[in-house]
């Protein structure tokens, strides 16, 4: 644990980050910007796992291992999302959400 910093302050920081990500996910209209907001949301949840593990159950490793798994899944998801976005751009010439209406040609 960080000396002098309570768990409430870190959880406040992560919830602020989470809702900034949600705001970006709602207001952005570009696929890559939505991907960036998604990374913010995932990252705040990872920090939550780690903080709760460290402050409440410091002798266990569950939160740590879960955050490693979340990072691996996020990496796979980003690689797939970038592949899909590049394919969409090749087919339709744009990555705006409003122009990707159909999923199959």
């Amino acid at each position, binding site marked *: *644990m960080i000396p*002098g*910093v*309570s*768990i*409430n*302050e*870190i*959880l*406040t*920081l992560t*919830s*602020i*980050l*989470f809702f*900034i*990500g949600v*705001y*970006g996910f*709602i207001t952005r*209209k570009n696929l*890559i*910007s939505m991907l*960036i907001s998604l*990374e*913010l949301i995932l*990252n705040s949840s990872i920090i939550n796992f*780690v903080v709760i593990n*460290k*402050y*409440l159950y*410091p*002798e*266990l*490793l569950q939160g*740590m*291992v879960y955050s*490693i*798994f979340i*990072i*691996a*899944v*996020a*990496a796979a998801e*980003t*690689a*797939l999302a*970038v*592949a*899909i*976005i*590049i*394919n969409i751009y*090749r*087919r*339709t*010439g*744009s*990555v*705006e959400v409003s122009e990707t209406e159909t999923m199959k040609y």
Partner: protein
Amino acid sequence: MEKVIFYILAIIMVTSAIAAVSSRKMLRSVVYLLFVLIGAAGLYFQMDYNFLAAIQLTVYAGGIVVLIIFSVLLIQHIEMELEVAGKYRQMISALLCLLGLSVFLATIYSHPFEAAGITSTTTTAEIGRALLSFDKQGFILPFEVISVLLLSAMIGAIVIAKGGKQIRQPGLEKIDPERILQKISEEVKEEKVPEEEIGV
């Protein structure tokens, strides 16, 4: 001292997160995201999780951000400005997010957390044993599943990015033989009519 560092990290993370979701230039918002990720790695260093901080720096800041930057550079110009949602929609979503944030904060500050108060360092060897043990607290099955997931995601990304050979520009329509024949016949008709008029 550690408290001051934590607050500096928190301010950097929040301001660059706000800049990442509100910047109108795409490449800049990716760089702001990089600042947020590095700030999270600093938090892990402060909490004495060195291995996790190293993973955060290599996988997130080194891998994912570079991947997103590559896709931005493949897709559009650096200085291209993005469309943003209308003012009304921005206000509504900001209000919704503030509402959700207040619910979260009320829950967090009303729940009595019992901090253990012990500081124990986690070594990398312990994490490796936890990941590969068959015991009740072991994670051998999720570990194997995640490796299969990574392999399938890699193959899927290659297949998806390679497929779709038809390259279509925004203004160009799909080639349709019947429509082309129709156009040609229409052109022929249009050309014939004036000739007859001239002849008459």
